[in-house]
């Protein structure tokens, strides 16, 4: 990348990040192919941390690989698997490996993953993790001890604009802003009118907002998310649009919908950028960008 993720965001351009899901093992060829395909087309590659509590190659190593290949990594960190010693230690570690962008999350329940008997750690929550990051950048750790060299981070967090109930989500959002989050990545959004309402509220805070775009690959996927993923609501008209796609063309339709949404978000300056989650279909991210008029 010609400039860092922070520089891209600060420039005021409509930024695009894409998600990279590490493999469950050391076979990294396919992931490296995705990294190489996307690194110069987006402003940041956001690497998940044992997403859905499924054990995978660690995010930090993948961010290091992205950096080595000339990409701009964003390190996801959850609070589920590490205590405050390991979290802070990994934060310092990220810096010496040249990683400056962070996304702090609480993390999914252990029980949704593939090691249900693992111990959930949650020594800190996402707000406390953000506070720890802020302290490390000021040259101190969470216990107030001085550091030999302060950390540098551009730090973000997540928000679910369509959470039900919304009030606790907004309280948490404001806590995250106060704890130093500079950018936010949202849970997948599909209803832009509702998202505009959320943005009317969020605009009062001086943070950058990246709308979460999850690529729809079938009507069934949309219905599944509506039934099972808290905070995701795919409107009926989009489900119908997905169903109407000719056989074998659902993915094409999903790309068209994602591209159309991104185009509108940008043209109407609804938010500051998007985070594209293609979940296993990373190779079509350039097609989504083309459909959005961003390629």
């Amino acid at each position, binding site marked *: 990348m010609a400039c860092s993720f922070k520089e891209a965001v600060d420039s005021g351009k409509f930024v695009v990040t894409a998600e990279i899901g590490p493999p*469950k*093992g050391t076979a990294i060829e396919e992931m490296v192919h995705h990294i190489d395909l996307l690194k110069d087309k987006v402003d940041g590659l956001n690497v998940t941390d044992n997403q859905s509590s499924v054990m995978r190659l660690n995010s930090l190593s993948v961010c290091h690989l992205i950096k080595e290949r000339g990409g701009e990594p964003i390190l996801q960190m959850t609070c589920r698997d590490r205590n405050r*010693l390991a979290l802070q230690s*990994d934060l310092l570690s*990220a810096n*010496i490996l040249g990683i400056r962008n962070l996304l702090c999350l609480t993390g999914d329940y252990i029980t949704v993953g593939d090691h249900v008997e693992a111990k959930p750690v949650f020594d800190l929550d996402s707000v406390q993790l953000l506070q720890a990051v802020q302290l490390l950048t000021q040259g101190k750790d969470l216990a107030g001890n001085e550091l030999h060299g302060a950390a540098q981070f551009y730090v973000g967090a997540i928000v679910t604009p369509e959470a039900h109930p919304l009030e606790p989500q907004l309280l948490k959002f404001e806590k995250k802003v106060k704890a130093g989050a500079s950018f936010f990545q949202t849970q997948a959004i599909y209803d832009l009118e509702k998202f505009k309402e959320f943005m009317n509220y969020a605009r009062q805070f001086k943070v950058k907002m990246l709308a979460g775009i999850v690529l729809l690959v079938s009507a069934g996927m949309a219905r599944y998310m509506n039934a099972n993923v808290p905070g995701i609501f795919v409107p009926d008209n989009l489900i119908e649009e997905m169903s109407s796609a000719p056989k074998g063309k659902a993915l094409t339709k999903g790309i068209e919908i994602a591209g159309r949404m991104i185009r509108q978000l940008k043209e109407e300056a609804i938010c500051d950028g998007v985070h594209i989650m293609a979940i296993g279909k990373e190779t079509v991210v350039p097609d989504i960008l083309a459909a959005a008029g961003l390629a």
Partner: protein
Amino acid sequence: MNLSELLNSKPFSITVEVIPPKGNDLSIFLGDLERVKGRADAILVRELPSAVMRLGALSTGVFLKERGFAPIVEFTCRDRNRLALQADLLGASVLGIENILVTLGEDIKSGDHPEARAVFDLNDNELLETIEKMRQGSDLAGNSLQGSPSLAAGASVVVDEREIERAIAEVEKKMSLGARFIMTSPIFKPALLDRFMGGVKKCKLPILTSVLLLKSAGMANYLNKNIPGISIPEEMIKRLLKSSDRGRTSVELASELIAELKELCQGINVVPIGWESKVPALLDLLKM
């Protein structure tokens, strides 16, 4: 060549233990290490010893590897659950770190974040078993891996003269769980190592014996009193007491000890704990 192969191939190897800094400034840390580059066979990177929050062992290992060192990275069980431990082990392998030292990890209460939650989802033996499983292509829960990691794990064993049989039994146990080498707790008496080696010879596992740089008689007395398994002979303490140059005496004591220990085992791990700057002088005395 991994550490286990190295220990088996050379008559005598030497490793130096290092503690990453508490922060991002690596200048002093690297300055000390540059002076042992090419002289020590490997650098053992400790992971948050005494439960003090520091720069991570894995990233420090990667950082050192990129600068031409051969790192061994410690993995403790204290701060990560099985998801994070396994994810980080895959990461180690992907970034070219093969040598892992598995330890349990010290008490959180002894560190600088006593209110932190101690994890211990796995213990050190379970972590060794996990590594062996991963090497064979599946994770701890039995799920197949897409690509298994190349890792050579070692284990640490406390060699206490009052419980030598327990130490020997532990080596056998760790070997059965997949350990490729054993690192001992600091040993100060060649006779003790000799007895221990007599008991573990049948395992044919390379043994890396730790040698601690004693900074003062006070430190020696403290260790004798408080650390299980450590027994420092009186003559050593007397020489430190009488010395006008403790740094020099410390290095001489270590060098004399190593001269005897190296005849008995496959390698020596030098433990400077803060006296990293004295290690080059020790290597000089050892003609390494």
